[in-house]
């Protein structure tokens, strides 16, 4: 009897162990690029392209990190990136939600045409509009400031997010609004107190996309910012990628430092993400 139980227990342990080994292998293969990046960030210049490749660095070249921080004015660029990302995120999430609410719940003449117009801007590649838009901003003297990067978002949000949120808002039952109206709420209160709280998971998703998008954006800051002390991290990091020579050590070290906030935000947001799912579960 006991031996049978032991066997069962052992079998369970064996199965769990195998599962862990398998999961471990999978996560290792996913993590490998990151580990390689960390290893490269610690290697000396000539070792990076050694053949055969060597995973373990030849001693720890922490100077790659100090070079990444000093040669490109890392903390100033970090601050600039954070400011742009903050305003971008704010407009992407709240203004898009506001516009999407309008498209989801209000009836006005030409609504479908307006919505199609908004959608059609998604199809337009950015390269097509880049030069005319640049000329526009240059006429009003906004070039070499963060304004062209953050202000447009406050006049309409981002079309993709508007589309996503409109679909999400359409799925919210009308009854909730009706009962709120009976309680004396106006449209704005309904948006603020019912739609937004119910859409937390969607908003968080958009926030993550928006954060990632503007944290990693290269072209926007490249086109509009001229002074080095206004640059963002992506611009700073690409300085290590020269036409003749790529400084892999500092490039990887800087990339890791730039990646940290993204990782932290992702872990924080992940928790909220799960909470958001729970919250929306109540609504039905």
């Amino acid at each position, binding site marked *: 009897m006991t031996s049978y139980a032991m066997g069962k227990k052992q079998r369970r342990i064996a199965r769990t162990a195998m599962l862990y080994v398998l999961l471990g292998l999978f996560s290792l293969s996913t993590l490998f690029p990151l580990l390689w990046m960390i290893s490269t960030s610690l290697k000396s210049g000539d070792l990076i*392209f050694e053949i055969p490749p060597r995973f373990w660095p030849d001693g720890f070249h922490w100077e790659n990190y100090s070079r990444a921080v000093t040669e490109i004015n890392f903390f100033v660029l970090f601050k600039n990136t954070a400011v742009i990302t903050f305003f971008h995120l704010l407009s992407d999430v709240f203004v898009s939600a506001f516009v999407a609410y309008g498209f989801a719940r209000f009836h006005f003449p030409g609504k479908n045409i307006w919505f199609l117009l908004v959608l059609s801007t998604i199809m337009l590649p950015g390269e097509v509009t880049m030069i005319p838009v640049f*000329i526009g901003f*240059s006429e009003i003297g*906004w070039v070499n400031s963060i*304004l062209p990067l953050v202000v447009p978002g406050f006049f309409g949000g981002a079309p993709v997010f508007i589309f996503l949120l409109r679909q999400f808002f359409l799925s919210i039952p009308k009854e909730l609004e009706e009962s709120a109206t009976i309680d004396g709420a106006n449209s704005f209160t309904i948006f603020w107190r019912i739609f937004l709280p119910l859409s937390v998971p969607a908003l968080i998703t958009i926030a993550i996309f928006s954060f990632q998008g503007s944290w990693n954006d*290269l072209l926007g800051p490249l086109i509009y910012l*001229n002074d080095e002390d206004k640059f963002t991290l992506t*611009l700073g990091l690409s300085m290590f990628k020269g036409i003749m020579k790529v400084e892999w050590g500092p490039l990887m070290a800087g990339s890791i430092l730039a990646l940290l906030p993204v990782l932290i935000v992702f872990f924080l947001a992940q928790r909220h993400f799960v909470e958001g799912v729970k919250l929306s579960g109540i609504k039905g």
Partner: protein
Amino acid sequence: MLLSLVLAFMVVLSACGGGGNNGNGASGSPDKPAESSQPAGKVKLKVATWAGADELREFEALVAKLNEKATDYELQVQSIPADYYQKLQTMIAGKQAPDFMWLSQEYVPQYASLGALAPLDEYLSGISSFHADDYFPGALDVGKFNNQTYALPWISQPYMLYYNQDMFEKAGVELPTNDWTWDDFIAAGQKLTKDGEWGALINNIPTAMYTWSYGGDVFDKDGNIVLNSPESIQGLEMYQKIVKSGIAPDRAQADSMGNGDMFKTGKVAMFIGGAGDDFEKTVKFKVGMVVPPKGTKQVTFSWIGVTAMSSTTKNPAVAAKALVDMTNAIHQWKVVAPTKSGFDLIKTSRPEKEYAVETIRKASEVARGFNNQPKQAEIDGTIWEHLTQPIENGVDVKKAVDNTIKKFQEIIK
């Protein structure tokens, strides 16, 4: 609740407004005083550069020194760390062009023909620190378009024939010399090619260089197509002969290994690449270099970087002087300088290249760039698709040339 949202919006708007004032102040100040206070103060001039990280710091230090000495101008470095030409073109289109811009040689005719660059000759003739005869002629030529100078070269890296001395000695083959012909190159290559090892890596060599070797070209200096001249055909046939001789790994294989890596790891014995490549420091074998092989003429390709002046610069006379000062200063910084006087720098700044200084000088004297055309990008694409690839695949050279010329005529008509 409504109030709180309105408040939130007001905070956002005021924050933007604040940012706007800062932004406007900062963006306006570098340009506007230059226009209004020109007679009184120094002319402010922006230089666009692709230099990054420590190269950028070195360039900024160089510019700071020039600014200290200058009485009539003040240079300001504008770093464009990525997508250099995209940003440059956007700035030019938005009438925000920098006063000076670094360009790779093939962009000069395009930018000049679009009116983005200022012709320099009328100013250069009056500047005493500009010495046209100090430049190697091939380097100065790439800055010209329609017989006008539009840009001054600041670097010229002639292509050299690097060789792995250990492999030559092991195979008992005589070392390359500056007088080698392409036939010598093939003969030595064949002795060095055996299982897993090749005589040479030739992916780097621009196809046009073979035509130059026999006195031909793709376009002549006036922009006429000369690709079908007997000299050009002879050069291209030599190219096909080299490919057929089997001394080089095929292009796909060499490219997948990374350009030059096969030479670095001792898989090929000869490599044609820029004089500034850092083989001496990174390889474990003894490395040497000579001027690349010749046909009927000794000539080599050179990677040439130039600085051009924008046609929108406010005070072109002062700007041209600043351009000459800056270019002269870069010749004392960058290796390999496109000038005879800049040559001594190699010994001090790249001591590992000292053994080859005379060879590099010899190469610089015969080095040249392409006779670039306003639509050079399309032309390069056509050469690759209709000339280089077919020749490598064994298509009859004359047939490939005819096809290429047909495509050229569509492009330049």
